[in-house]
């Protein structure tokens, strides 16, 4: 009985929490005049028209273009982060060198640093390099491991691997590089996958830097395209706006369903917050 009550409570809380998401999905199928005030989830008559409108494009640019740009940024970020952070993490966790302590402390400190203090000089750099309004300012920093948080995440994981493996690898004739490639890296897969998923989702959701760096509609990512709606919110465009919101959240939802265990474990063990 007590058990049942617990489940009822949990489900009720969950329903309240996820109501806005359900509302969004429902609204994306509703005609515009029904969206605003209707509490009901089920539309009186389900329409696909909103999605049709989205796929007709915005500001003369196809939605596929926005999607492609977003994918480019996210996939580029994932590759950059996983590669550069894994390399740095291996050095911090498995190798010894004189500056390890101070550099590690510095790396941790940069996690806490508000990015706003770097924004303007970084923008100036990318402007000098003539890279503004391309995806490079969004991907290049990841290739240089500026998301120090993920270095920390992978370090934590690599430190937990048994050192005997390193000894065994050495006896078998592996130097540090081959130990990294053949022993540590394969065993760190959970941490690398966690890094990849979080990087994907964060760069997919990222708004501030995309807002700053991308400024012609052809180069817009999905969040920026969605933002176009903000400036022109007449009620008639609500339907398409909701449909497009659903589309932008879809990849995150898919990642969540596929990897929820890893995601939640990643948060639990490292304390990263969304």
């Amino acid at each position: 009985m007590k058990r049942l009550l617990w489940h009822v409570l949990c489900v009720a809380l969950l329903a309240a929490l996820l109501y806005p998401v359900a509302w969004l999905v429902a609204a994306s199928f509703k005609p515009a005049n029904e969206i605003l005030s209707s509490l009901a989830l089920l539309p009186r008559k389900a329409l696909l028209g909103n999605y049709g409108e989205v796929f007709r494009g915005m500001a003369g640019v196809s939605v596929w273009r926005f999607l492609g740009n977003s994918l480019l940024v996210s996939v580029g970020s994932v590759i950059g982060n996983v590669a550069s952070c894994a390399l740095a993490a291996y050095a911090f966790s498995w190798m010894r060198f004189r500056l390890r302590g101070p550099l590690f402390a510095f790396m941790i400190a940069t996690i806490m640093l508000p990015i706003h203090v770097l924004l303007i000089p970084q923008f100036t750099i990318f402007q000098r390099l003539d890279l503004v309004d391309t995806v490079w300012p969004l991907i290049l920093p990841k290739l240089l491991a500026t998301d120090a948080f993920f270095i920390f995440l992978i370090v934590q994981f690599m430190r937990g691997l048994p050192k005997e493996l390193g000894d065994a690898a050495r006896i078998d004739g592996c130097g540090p590089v081959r130990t990294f490639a053949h022993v540590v890296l394969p065993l760190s897969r959970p941490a690398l996958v966690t890094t990849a998923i979080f990087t994907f989702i964060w760069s997919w959701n990222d708004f501030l830097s995309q807002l700053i760096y991308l400024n012609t509609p052809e180069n817009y990512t999905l969040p920026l395209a969605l933002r176009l709606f903000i400036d022109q919110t007449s009620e008639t465009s609500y339907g398409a706006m909701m449909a497009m919101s659903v589309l932008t959240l879809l990849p995150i939802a898919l990642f969540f369903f596929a990897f929820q265990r890893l995601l939640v474990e990643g948060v639990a063990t490292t304390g990263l917050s969304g």
Partner: protein
Amino acid sequence: MTTTRTIGRRRTTPPAEPVPRRRPRYGERPGLAYLFLSPWVLGALLLTVGPMAASLYLSFTDYDLFTTPDWIGLANYRALFGDDPRFFAAVWVTVKYVLLSTPLKLVAALAVAMLLNRVSRTQGFYRSAFYAPSLLGASVAVALVWRVIFDERGVVDESLSVLGVHTGGWVSNPRYSLLVLVALAVWQFGAPMVIFLAGLKQIPQEYYDASAVDGAGPWRTFRSITLPMLSPVIFFNLVLETIHAFQAFTGAFVVSGGRGGPVDSTLFYTLYLYQKGFTEFRMGYASAMAWVLVIVVAIITAVLFRTARLWVFYAGEESR
């Protein structure tokens, strides 16, 4: 790459470099370590240390991105604190936001973590489900939903009207607009909740058994066992969430259409910084604002660490 292969093949013989007679122990090749670190070192120098110094310099200049920066000394800082009412509005809005959203979020996170912290096959499912908003909430899409739900004649307005409360839309009302963003932040309590749950699992069952034997009720047990044992995790979440809250941007931008209105009621600090830097191109001024933010966040973090001595309990440490 060639050096690597050599080491690999040589096995027990020392490498060719002039090293002490002692065979280098595993991993003792500093050059190689720095090679692994090189992307990060490059990034740290070019994209972190360099820009920090640059923005400190720019904060003492008049800089519009296109002409060379003009040294103007402390003028930006004097203007900030002297005659910029919007700056104070932004600070006040941000402080209110941090003070409201962080405690509410943490209380919600702890409450739900306590609720979920029991042996059950379904715990994993609930944990993931409650965590989901933390992944979605940072997006423009969800902020748009918030904007529509809390708008005039939106879902919230309509339901409150049914109850006889007429607020006329929270988004356009300066008295309530900030609450829309607080609600958006609290909605994402899943991440700290997951961390709390991990912390709760670390508390030894014996403590609870002992307190049951002593006849302590649930509230007493919570106060005397759960809270002190969990205090390091609470502290961790508090620091992290506070720092995050100071930097909130997307929600305010989307809900207010980039303006921070109505009447600057959602003019978050970062939003004002963005406006100064990237719409007015007053980059020197914006740099000064960024440095004020860094210093304030640093001070608050330091103060939190100070107070931690008074209330954070580390097991194994002698009681104070």
